[in-house]
């Protein structure tokens, strides 16, 4: 054939027979599989026909993978567009509401103020849904870009607890954080903060009035362990295996009509795994749930600012 590689190979290691079969997809040659043999071979029609069927199968498979990744790309572009189009009106809704809520207290009256606070809370809920949808669409497109820096897990937990406090107080929940001294961890602070936010806001959401949410940070045999435990409604054991699936919602959640779309834990799992960690859950209906994240010590890495980690 064209290049000098095969004759050279044939000479170097004494090859006497070569059989090349094309990988064909949609009428185009996508690649070639080449088989060599040291001994001279007779032309074997049935072998050639079997191998060309294989070539076609591989071609079809490649073609299908290609269209799947095209479809994911288009889906990603679609979500980016939807996200943009939803964020624009939300900017006005949230922006003008803020202006009203900043007005002097007596200009509004408590009742009207409460109504507007409700509108504001729901607009923000819609906004976080838009962000979550864009996030999972990006995952499908092939990865989760992470920015690795030294970070303080305790501070991430404290910030997430602080953000959850107003909601927790309205339900008279006790929020607690216990932690041993932790060495700085190398990870993406924004993404890991998101995992704390999702786990803690879930715990608060699914725990009835008067309950308790506890966040524990510790190191177990070199593994950094995060636990978020609540005294909430719990998850039936038969459903626990599906919890991290996209759009999955536990029957206890839908039964109690607790709002949500089932993306929070999918996002947690993706972020934790992109850091080389793992997620697990233990729960009993009516007793409560504990989510556990385990981050093994990172392998020694070069001092690069960021890296691309496949989802």
């Amino acid at each position, binding site marked *: 054939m064209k290049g000098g590689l095969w004759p050279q190979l044939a000479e170097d290691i004494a090859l006497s027979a070569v059989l090349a079969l094309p990988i064909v997809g949609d009428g185009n040659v996508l690649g070639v599989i080449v088989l060599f043999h040291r001994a001279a071979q007779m032309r074997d029609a049935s072998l050639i026909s079997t191998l060309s069927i294989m070539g076609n199968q591989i071609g079809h498979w490649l073609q299908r993978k290609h269209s799947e990744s095209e479809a994911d790309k288009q889906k990603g572009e679609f979500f*980016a567009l939807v996200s*943009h189009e939803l964020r624009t009106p*939300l900017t006005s809704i*949230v*922006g003008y509401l803020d202006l009203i809520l900043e007005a002097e207290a007596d200009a509004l009256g408590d009742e009207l103020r409460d109504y507007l606070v409700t509108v504001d809370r729901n607009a923000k809920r819609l906004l976080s849904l838009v*962000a979550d949808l864009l996030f999972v669409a*990006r995952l499908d497109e092939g990865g989760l870009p992470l920015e690795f820096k030294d970070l303080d897990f305790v501070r991430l937990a404290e910030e997430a607890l602080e953000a959850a406090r107003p909601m927790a107080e309205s339900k008279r929940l006790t929020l607690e954080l216990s932690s041993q001294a932790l060495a700085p961890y190398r990870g993406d602070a924004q993404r890991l903060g998101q995992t704390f936010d999702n786990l803690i806001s879930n715990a608060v959401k699914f725990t009835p009035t008067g309950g308790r949410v506890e966040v524990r940070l510790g190191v177990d045999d070199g593994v950094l362990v995060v636990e978020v435990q609540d005294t909430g409604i719990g998850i039936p054991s038969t459903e626990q295996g599906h919890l991290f699936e996209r759009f999955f919602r536990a029957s206890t959640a839908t039964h109690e009509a607790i709002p949500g779309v089932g993306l929070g834990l999918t996002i947690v799992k993706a972020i934790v795994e992109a850091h080389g960690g793992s997620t697990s859950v233990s729960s009993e209906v009516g007793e409560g749930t504990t989510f556990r994240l385990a981050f093994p010590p990172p392998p020694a890495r070069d001092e690069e600012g960021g890296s691309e980690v496949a989802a």
Partner: protein
Amino acid sequence: MARILVVDDDPDIVNLVNIRLRKQGHKVVMAGSGAEALAVTSEDPPDVAVLDVSMPGLSGLELCRLLRGSEGMTDLPVIFLSARVLPEDIEAGKSLGARYLTKPFVASALFDAVNSSLKAPDEP
């Protein structure tokens, strides 16, 4: 107190940013498109520009280049205020030496961006 150009194809957002900045004592020049922005600034350059990114006609990124190509605005500090939130969008804005805020925005973040733009035109 500064003279601030605000450009967005959504009039509600132009007005929202206008109200916020006026309350801080700034003078605001509003425009609904890149072309309009070029027209209203040709006589009297602003101190800072707050630009949307996705607009019909000129995009915010193109407008940023054109404004800075105009007389008296070579070092114009620009703040992009955009509903495009993907890392590559933010990178594209920052690569022009601009600040980048995402929509919906927090008023205090807008004020911080304006104030720091007035002190140091280029984002470090």
